[in-house]
């Protein structure tokens, strides 16, 4: 249980907050069963089947229905979920999991090791791009030698493997429903069957998603809540009003805009925390297409970095909800290194770098494509445009919708854009994908779309991934971070701090490093 403290105003307060909320403190009261929790799913998820869609809202709602083998604490410690115990062989090649007893699917069928094998070997291998990659690169076999036991045999060591069992990476799906079917069009996707503490009762598209307590949940006496409502409210201002009027009890990071966070945090009986995002630790970056002149020139990218006042961005564009990023690896992720090239805000230095590179900015028009995720991102684009124009470049902002953005990025048809990456606890899972030259593939917005190539970095990242000892991994990742920052493989802007806002009556809301995506089996409402 986390101590949740009131949000202090201003940047300093917010940075400090992350430390405070990390403290463990025992809640004095004992949980009271019953009650309804109202939340917001924004935007409305297209589907609740986590194995087919890993977007934020899908995970938020689907996380109450589906579960993975493991979960992770706010300090990224590995915690049990559907697996109650696990063991890693000394050579780092064999991972054995012991499953919880007496777990049932929502349709009453028993949950078995066969479900896990099917999930790993069949379902996710076909439908889940991230698992596909891990499975084909590292996994030799998945077997169940005995009931309640699953063994993953690896081809080569993978230091991040134990972190690959987070909800969005490895949601366990029921074999008896999906085996031999077309996963995407299986009608069961509309009536999700998981092992989680809540079951889908009704989904009124455009209005709400209603989940009810799973009476047969495998943790005795849990969940405490009877009902969950995820409301669909498309307008950000209306969402703020919904919280204010008491129609919803919880706001997830991103549900309301930064400015409203400040105001809502000051209301009576309201608590805030930035905990619960440690596993994801999104890092926002400016992606510069290194195939295009003049961005192919390292010093131009360095100049751009010097021209951006990242403190200003955090303070004025994102209303203090973040901190400037210094490295590709977030400060909350394993193997974060401080020994990197720094880019303080310095227009003179930026101009000097351009001169040194012999680039005449007036000759270049750069296209800047904002990420279409809401007004703060538009402001970010406007700020970046304004700063880069002061270097002498011409910048034209290309407005795109999510479809257009995804496509342009996937096909490398951009000069500059923004993106952010979830870290998934380990550089091999969420970070390396943006820098490995093997990941320069068309068709995904979340690969090495800027076309960065450095064989040395490839080597270091792979060495880190397959290191057996943590020290070896740390060494390789530290060196990689040094090179990446020096070459500005991406323009890291800031680490997002997502604030969860809730009413004081909601207890035990954020307990792990996956925050609100965690099964809310321990959440209860004080009377």
């Amino acid at each position, binding site marked *: 249980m986390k101590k949740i403290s009131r949000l202090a105003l201003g940047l300093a307060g917010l940075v400090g907050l992350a430390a405070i909320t990390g403290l463990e403190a025992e809640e004095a009261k004992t949980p009271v069963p019953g009650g309804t929790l109202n939340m917001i799913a924004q935007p409305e998820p297209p589907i609740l089947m986590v194995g087919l869609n890993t977007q934020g809202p899908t995970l938020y709602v689907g996380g109450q229905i589906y579960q993975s083998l493991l979960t992770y604490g706010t300090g990224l410690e590995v915690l049990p979920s559907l697996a109650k115990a696990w063991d890693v062989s000394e050579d780092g090649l064999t991972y054995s999991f012991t499953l919880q007893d007496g777990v049932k699917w929502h349709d009453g069928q028993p949950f078995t090791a066969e479900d896990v094998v099917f999930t790993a070997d069949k379902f996710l291998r076909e439908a889940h791009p991230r698992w596909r990659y891990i499975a084909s690169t590292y996994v030799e076999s998945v077997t169940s030698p005995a009931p309640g036991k699953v063994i993953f045999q690896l081809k080569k060591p993978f230091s991040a493997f134990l972190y690959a069992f987070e909800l969005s990476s490895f949601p366990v799906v029921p074999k008896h429903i999906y085996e031999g079917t077309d996963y995407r069009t299986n009608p069961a996707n509309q009536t999700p069957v998981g092992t989680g503490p809540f079951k889908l009762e009704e989904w009124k598209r455009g209005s709400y998603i209603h989940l009810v307590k799973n009476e047969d949940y495998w943790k005795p006496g849990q969940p405490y809540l009877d009902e969950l409502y995820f409301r669909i409210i498309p307008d*950000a*201002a209306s969402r*703020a009003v919904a919280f204010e009027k008491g129609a919803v009890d919880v706001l997830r990071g991103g549900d*309301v*805009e930064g*400015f*409203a966070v400040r*105001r809502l945090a000051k209301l009576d009986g309201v608590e805030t925390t930035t905990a619960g995002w440690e596993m994801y630790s999104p890092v926002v970056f400016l992606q510069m297409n290194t195939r295009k002149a003049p961005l192919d020139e390292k010093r131009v990218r360095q100049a751009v970095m010097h021209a951006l006042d990242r403190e200003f961005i955090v303070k*004025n*564009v994102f209303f203090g909800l973040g901190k400037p990023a210094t490295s590709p690896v977030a400060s909350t992720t394993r193997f974060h290194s401080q020994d990197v090239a720094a880019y303080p805000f310095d227009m003179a230095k930026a101009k000097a770098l351009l001169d040194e590179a012999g680039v005449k900015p007036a000759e270049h028009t750069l296209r800047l494509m*904002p990420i*279409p995720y809401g*007004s703060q991102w*538009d*402001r970010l*684009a*406007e*700020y970046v*445009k*304004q700063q880069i124009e002061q270097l002498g470049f011409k910048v*034209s*902002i*290309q*407005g*795109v*919708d999510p479809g*257009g953005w995804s496509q342009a990025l996937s096909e490398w048809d951009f000069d500059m854009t923004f993106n952010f990456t979830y870290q998934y606890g380990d550089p091999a899972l969420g970070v390396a994908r943006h820098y490995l030259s093997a990941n320069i593939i068309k068709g995904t917005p979340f690969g090495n779309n800027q076309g960065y190539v450095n064989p040395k970095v490839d080597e270091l990242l792979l060495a880190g991934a397959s290191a057996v000892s943590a020290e070896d991994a740390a060494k390789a990742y530290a060196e990689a971070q040094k090179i990446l920052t020096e070459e500005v493989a991406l323009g890291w802007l800031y680490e997002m701090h997502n604030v969860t806002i809730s009413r004081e009556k909601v207890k035990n809301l954020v307990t792990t490093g996956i925050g609100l995506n965690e099964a809310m089996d321990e959440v209860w409402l004080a009377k």
Partner: protein
Amino acid sequence: MTFFRRYAQHYGALVGLAILSGVLLVALLAPLIYPVSPWQGVGEPLLGPFEDPAFPLGTDMLGRDIAAGLAYGARVSLLIGVVSTAVAVVIGVSIGALAGFYGGRIDDLLMRFTEFFQTIPAFAMAIVLVAIFNPTIASITLAIAVVSWPPVARLVRGEFMSLRSREFVQAAVVVGQSGPRIMLTQILPNTLSPIIVTASLMVATAILTESSLSFLGLGDRNMMSWGFMIGAARTMLREAWWMSVFPGVAILITVLAINLIGEGLNDAMNPHLRGRKG
């Protein structure tokens, strides 16, 4: 002189003209009054109105001057309004004239085509067009034009149909003038007044449509427009009302002024049809 006298009798029309002239003046002089780009942060972020005399209407979250934004926004709104209307009028007049003049199959075909466009809700269609071709000032202007021409086509078709049988047109046919020539030199000049009245009202609608598109996030990101300002400010309506109120008022009075002018024109041009408008 009678035209102007009739126009001037319309008190509201004079007010409208005065307001629109003011807006035009501001739009023209914007770069002189505010030499710095309206996108450039120039002051402390989120200053309220009159907090700092340098920024009488306050600043937004990036410290940009709201007044400068309004001045530059006037250019965009008027530009989109006028250009999209011009394009729509050209399309509408061409289709309406052909349909009305030739009648028969051509009329049937063109009117069915017009009907397709009228059946799809105009704003929904505009959204689709702008979204799939990406929002730029060109795509927005074009999208507005594409959804607003059908009423012009219908109007012009009606006028052409009734004028076609008039004596002076029949005379031209007998003399052997070509179809296009008759349409351009004989009939079109006689349909100008209702077209002008309709067009003036369309400019107003176009400005509203542009602001609605911007509100939905489908504005041109390189152009400071009023709709954009409201769209950017709407999530902060509670905290910084001035950011959305001033551009809202700007839209309101500009559209109002144009409507008043349209009415005045209508009264002045069609004295016998006083009140026939839609």
